[in-house]
């Protein structure tokens, strides 16, 4: 089974995700603050990007949330709003799905592994 999902978070996505998740760290919300601490601009929440990897897995497994048994990720490059995220994954013979998420050449999630089951 191959996994693929493409999504482009809009400019205001980090504000909606902050409200939904409770994470109001200004590096995600305030471009000026983010630049002051050495970031290119306000960055996506890593756990939002992980949620896209999770969504890619459950969609590939038919949509039922019970299919996702385990997911581990490593956060790497900074994700940015208004750039397309592409999640890709391939299932190996043991049933484990190896995944990553990237914006262009910038891999924002690496070495992700998911275990899927039946619902």
């Amino acid at each position: 089974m191959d996994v693929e999902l493409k999504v482009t978070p809009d400019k205001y996505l980090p504000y909606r995700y902050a409200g939904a998740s409770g994470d109001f760290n200004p590096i995600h919300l305030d471009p000026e603050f983010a630049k002051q601490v050495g970031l290119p601009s306000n960055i996506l929440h890593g756990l939002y990007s992980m949620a896209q990897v999770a969504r890619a897995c459950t969609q590939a497994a038919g949509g039922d949330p019970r299919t996702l048994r385990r997911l581990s990720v490593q956060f790497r490059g900074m994700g940015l709003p208004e750039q397309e995220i592409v999640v890709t994954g391939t299932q190996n013979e043991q049933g484990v799905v190896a995944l990553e998420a990237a914006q262009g050449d910038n891999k924002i999630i690496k070495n992700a592994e998911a275990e899927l089951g039946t619902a």
Partner: protein
Amino acid sequence: MPVNDAAKGKTYPPVEYEVGKEKIKEYAWAVGEDNPVYFDREQAQAAGFRDVVAPPMFAVVYSWGAMGAAALDPEVGMNFAMLVHGGQEFAWGEPVCSGDTISTEISVKDIYERGGMGFYVFESVSRNQDGQEVVRGTWTNIVRGV
């Protein structure tokens, strides 16, 4: 300077979170989920859930209060100005539905230094009101330049 690992093994009192239908909807909408089992009670029940079900990654919402308290513990002593979220793992059990009360306990699983960076690894275990484990999380925070 080596990292202070005195808090290794420390545990924190459980923190409760009551799961609501509208909060699930808000979260599901924010992350782009469109399966009606996250929004519609009848469709969720038709799919075999007790009520509207939470997407798996809703784990971050009901774990947040417990995790925040541990992360801010002065005895752990993470330097937030230099903090990055390095890695995350969740292993899911019983689904979480609207109306559940989820209790999350955090422990400091490991603190160590590698390559001039401090690694702070927390484990969260979340259970529902019937004592069933709903998720086990491993949260790896990295502090640059310790």
